[in-house]
């Protein structure tokens, strides 16, 4: 029988960090300066009960891009608007451009503002996909991810989360000894795999 089970914080942390490292090295040919700084906290929400997403709250003072993906247990939960979590990527625009250049696959397009937004969406998409793939290997059922919502500085409407679970883990990643991006992950219980 499948049962709803919390994904332990250590698995959440190791899966997300492994996903980020894989993308940074494989796609961008770079290395993190050090292991990410981690902290936990409680979600702050707006009047629509959605997570407030502002890059200035995460230590980004200059131009930045924010991308958010909702996580759901099933199509039924998507229809009802009941998420089991969210992944939010806050990126420093200057260093994301540098990261895009490092990939060597985008030519002169790195200064195009639209390309930066699309790159952050794809980065958030790949990070979340890698996170889910790693959690599934550890005995959980696959969860669904929405298409990324990406914007500059903030996502005005915020993003939905599970109101019964308000904890998050924050990961601060550095490259070239600079704060390049921060990821916020919130994930409530998800289904374990069914065993006979």
């Amino acid at each position: 029988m499948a049962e709803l089970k919390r994904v332990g914080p250590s698995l959440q942390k190791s899966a997300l960090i492994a996903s980020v490292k894989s993308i940074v090295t494989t796609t961008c040919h770079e290395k993190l300066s050090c292991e990410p700084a981690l902290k936990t906290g409680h979600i702050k929400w707006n009047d629509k009960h959605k997570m407030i997403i502002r890059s200035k709250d995460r230590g980004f003072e200059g131009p930045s891009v924010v991308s958010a993906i909702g996580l759901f247990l099933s199509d039924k939960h998507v229809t009802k608007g009941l998420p089991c979590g969210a992944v939010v990527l806050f990126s420093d625009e200057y260093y994301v451009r540098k990261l895009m250049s490092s990939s060597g696959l985008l030519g002169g397009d790195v200064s195009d503002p639209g390309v930066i937004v699309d790159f952050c969406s794809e980065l958030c998409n790949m990070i979340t996909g890698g996170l889910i793939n790693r959690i599934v290997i550890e005995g959980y059922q696959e969860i669904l991810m929405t298409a990324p919502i990406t914007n500059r500085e903030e996502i005005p409407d915020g993003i939905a989360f599970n109101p019964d679970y308000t904890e998050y883990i924050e990961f601060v990643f550095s490259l070239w000894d600079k704060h390049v991006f921060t990821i916020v992950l919130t994930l409530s219980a998800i289904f374990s795999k069914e065993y006979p």
Partner: protein
Amino acid sequence: MKKILVVDDSSVQRKMIHQIIKQAGFENDVLEAGNGEDAIQVLGTNFKEVGLILCDWHMPEMNGVEFIAGVAKVQAVAEIPVVMVTTAGTEEKLKQAYSVHPNLKGYVVKPFTSEKLRTIIAPLLESTS
């Protein structure tokens, strides 16, 4: 020379795949589509020229697996080799993709190295040229 159809909702990912194809020395023209519905439109007018389809899974309107399931049912395009290029890397997803399209020739999980994609598409392009 046959064309390559890249189906992905991310324009950045489409550009990256296009660049990998060019850097690998393939001179095939690349057609692009942002989701399964767009890809059907592109195939509708170009199906005789397309020799390879590279397809993402998670896309709006019509996702990649719905698209390749449709492709597998149409005789005129069912033989075009298809490679999935996606973040959906679980065993269940892989089985689902192969079950809807028996002619699926590869399954590449993002992030991937240029070398990995080259290794998979090179023999497919050589066989269709």
